[in-house]
């Protein structure tokens, strides 16, 4: 990566460059390969309140502006929203994205060198914006394929209040 190319992709002042280096050093401290952090049968679970603002934070970087997802709108702020299911609903793969924050034990340093490689996701019921869900992940396999190491998890996402099963997934992480 040449300095010119880097500066084109991410123009930064010297202050920003220093802040970036500090942030990265913090990420690297005490982290270790994911393969070494997980045993088959490990189960982790966390609750996630899917606020209207969280939905917007998820959607804007992928530039998805479907109005069905809007429980928050600039100037108006909180709104009920509209979708084929009544009020605003959560994008199909939003909860899949937050599985990462469960399967990587958030109480430990983040595992370096991990790459998400595969997901098989089932959207069983629409999730209303504002729901609190419980995301449960279970490590079901560790395997090597063509010299690379993978950890496979099964995932379930249910409504904390009603017990409705919203989402199921199988996903693979490639580890150093």
């Amino acid at each position: 990566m040449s300095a010119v190319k880097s500066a084109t992709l991410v123009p930064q002042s010297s202050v920003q460059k220093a802040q970036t280096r500090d942030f990265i050093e913090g990420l690297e401290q005490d982290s270790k390969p994911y393969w070494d952090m997980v045993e088959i049968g490990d189960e982790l679970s966390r609750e996630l309140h899917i606020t209207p603002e969280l939905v917007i934070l998820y959607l804007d970087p992928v530039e998805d502006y479907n109005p069905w997802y809007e429980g928050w709108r600039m100037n108006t702020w909180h709104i009920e929203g509209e979708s084929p299911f009544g009020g605003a609903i959560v994008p199909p793969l939003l909860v899949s994205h937050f599985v990462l924050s469960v399967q990587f034990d958030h109480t430990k340093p983040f595992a370096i060198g991990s790459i998400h490689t595969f997901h098989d996701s089932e959207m069983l019921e629409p999730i209303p914006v504002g729901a609190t869900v419980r995301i449960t992940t279970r490590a079901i396999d560790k395997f090597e394929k063509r010299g690379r190491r993978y950890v496979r998890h099964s995932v379930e996402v249910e409504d904390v209040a009603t017990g409705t099963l919203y989402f199921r997934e199988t996903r693979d992480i490639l580890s150093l």
Partner: protein
Amino acid sequence: MDLESLRITPETPVGYALQPIKKKAAIQLMGSRVWGRFNPNHWDPAYAASTGLENPIQTGEMSSAYISEMCVNHFGAAMFKNARIVCKYIASTLADEVIVTGGVITEKTPKGKGFRFKADVWAENEAGEKKTVGWVEADIGV
């Protein structure tokens, strides 16, 4: 544009092509807090180079989100109930690449009063190099 005009209906034939979504893998979006911020390989050119990458790479889940957007455009409400998306990340999306999604209906199986549709889906760069491949299933008119 009225997205209803894109919707899959029970009459939609096998071979029907989904309309693409096109996005730029902008590094400033790749490094946002709820996406790649936790891993500098997704947004810092110097760190990415130190790990052997030509450029920072987008999280695969961003291409899944692009594919999901395309599918909601076509399958509408059916993507939120008893639907399925399977994606395999087969190559890295590099910062600054333009990604285009695609899809084609491959199966149409009678179910209830309607059909369960299956479509092959993908995300590729403008050179046609596949980054993500997979398939989706959804019930229409069931």
